[in-house]
């Protein structure tokens, strides 16, 4: 059984279904990347995995435990961390407070983790007394990822973490993601910078209209000319 196993998810926002029996699995320490056209339901699938969307069918298990019925904050306690695509910072709290909030469920001392985040994103240290709402787009994105890292999750879910960040930071970010995965944390992320993402992915999903279209290793997907042409921009 995979570490995260979201199988046959079907559901949507009320009217028509967005997801059609979509399945996502991630092993321990593995990086799984979801790619696909805009509006394919990638974010929706992420939300479904995190319990922010009620599923009509399908179930989600984490480490063998069925968590389909749990609320998002309970999933956080089970070791899941999530960076949403939009609205992913606390705008009128300072950068530092944003990070603190990431560590909300932790009872231990999180100063070390915070240092690590600052190391990863030096600009955040500089701006730590500034409200996140006043940051530039890319800076915010860094805060968002930093916040999720503060949780020290066992499964980290990232919805387009590199949208709007500069190449140098993007590299750093991917770098760090690899490192994180190496420590045994599972990563599930949605990316539009698909080529770079698949490069580091152990597993890739191509989602189209809420259903799994291709599933393979990252490298294999990159090599597939059809996938390249239709989804990765040639």
């Amino acid at each position, binding site marked *: 059984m995979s570490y995260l196993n979201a199988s046959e998810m079907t559901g949507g*926002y009320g009217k028509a279904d967005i997801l059609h029996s979509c399945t996502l699995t991630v092993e321990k320490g593995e990086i799984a990347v979801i*790619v*696909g*056209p*805009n*509006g*394919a339901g990638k*974010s929706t699938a992420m939300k479904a995995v995190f319990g922010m969307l009620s599923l009509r069918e399908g179930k989600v298990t984490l480490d063998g435990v069925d968590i389909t019925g749990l609320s998002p904050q309970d999933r956080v306690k089970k070791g899941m961390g999530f960076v949403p*695509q*939009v609205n992913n910072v606390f705008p009128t709290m300072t950068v530092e407070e944003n990070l603190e909030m990431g560590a909300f469920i932790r009872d231990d001392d999180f100063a070390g983790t915070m240092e690590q985040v600052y190391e990863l994103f030096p*600009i955040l240290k500089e701006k730590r007394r500034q409200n996140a709402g*006043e*940051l*530039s*787009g*890319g*800076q915010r*994105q*860094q805060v968002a990822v930093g916040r999720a890292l503060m949780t020290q999750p066992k499964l980290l879910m990232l919805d*387009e973490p590199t*949208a*709007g*960040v*500069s*190449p*140098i*930071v*993007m*590299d*750093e970010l*991917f*770098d760090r993601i690899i490192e994180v995965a190496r420590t045994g944390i599972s990563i599930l992320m949605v990316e*539009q*910078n*698909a*080529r*770079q993402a698949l*490069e*580091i992915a152990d597993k890739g999903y191509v989602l189209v209209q809420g259903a799994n279209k291709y599933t393979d290793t990252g490298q294999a997907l990159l090599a597939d000319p059809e996938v390249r*042409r*239709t*989804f*990765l*921009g*040639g």
Partner: protein
Amino acid sequence: MFAQSMKSGDPMIRVENLVKSFGGFRAVDGASLEIATGSITGLIGPNGAGKSTLFNVIAGVHAPTSGRVTMDGEDITGLAPHELFHKGLLRTFQIAHEFPSLTVRENLMMVPSGQAGETLWNTWFGRGRIREEETALLKKADEVLDFLTISHLKDEKAGNLSGGQKKLLELGRTMMVEAKIVFLDEVGAGVNRTLLNTIGDAIVRLNKERGYTFCVIEHDMDFIGRLCDPVIVMAEGKVLAEGSADHIMENEAVIEAYLGTGLKNKVKAEETAEAAAHEDHGAQPGLGDEAGKGEAQ
């Protein structure tokens, strides 16, 4: 229709010594640059370099702390956004600003200004004219939607679109009118790369066929490289370098501040270090002193 009046090559927008500070912090710190008429100018730079702020000042969202902006030689510093729109200056937002309770199609149809139906009097006594106008608008909106591959969503409330779809809608709005210059703030972020290529084609087409001038902020260097000439690099509120995309990508200071040395190379760490050492072409002379400062940091 606007563009014809101007000779290609003259600066459309000239920014002189622009400063914008928030509290004590100078987000734009004495930037000077020009955007040539008929060009697709790229604007890149590290996160927080002040690109969006620069856009916002030019587009009249923020008042500048000091400095001047001209368009076609006319001083437009501090004009209100709607006045700039009427001068043919359009922009998109980095964080999509759709009208959530309007349908996707309505989001497009509301764009053109001076619609007869926007005058109350006409809504009561000028129904005929409005009907004609609306038919034309509808047609145009549907064309744009087709182009953006989201025509199946035309009656959906814009608030329900996915992140990328909203971005497309942003772009679509600029296509509803004859613009002189369009400022695009990260149209690509969150947009599928295949679609982004299509968008790129559209930009080129608008530029070639309709004479739009573009200024594009983007972090995707493929996209920048394919589309933009020249490329302006900002860092810490100033212009760091300027030149063709190829030149810029080889600029030491730019690599250090912005591009980094590339992921692939990092994975194979040793090779990267060497490769970087070789690419030592020195700073481009664009705006020399800024470049120097950029390097010095």
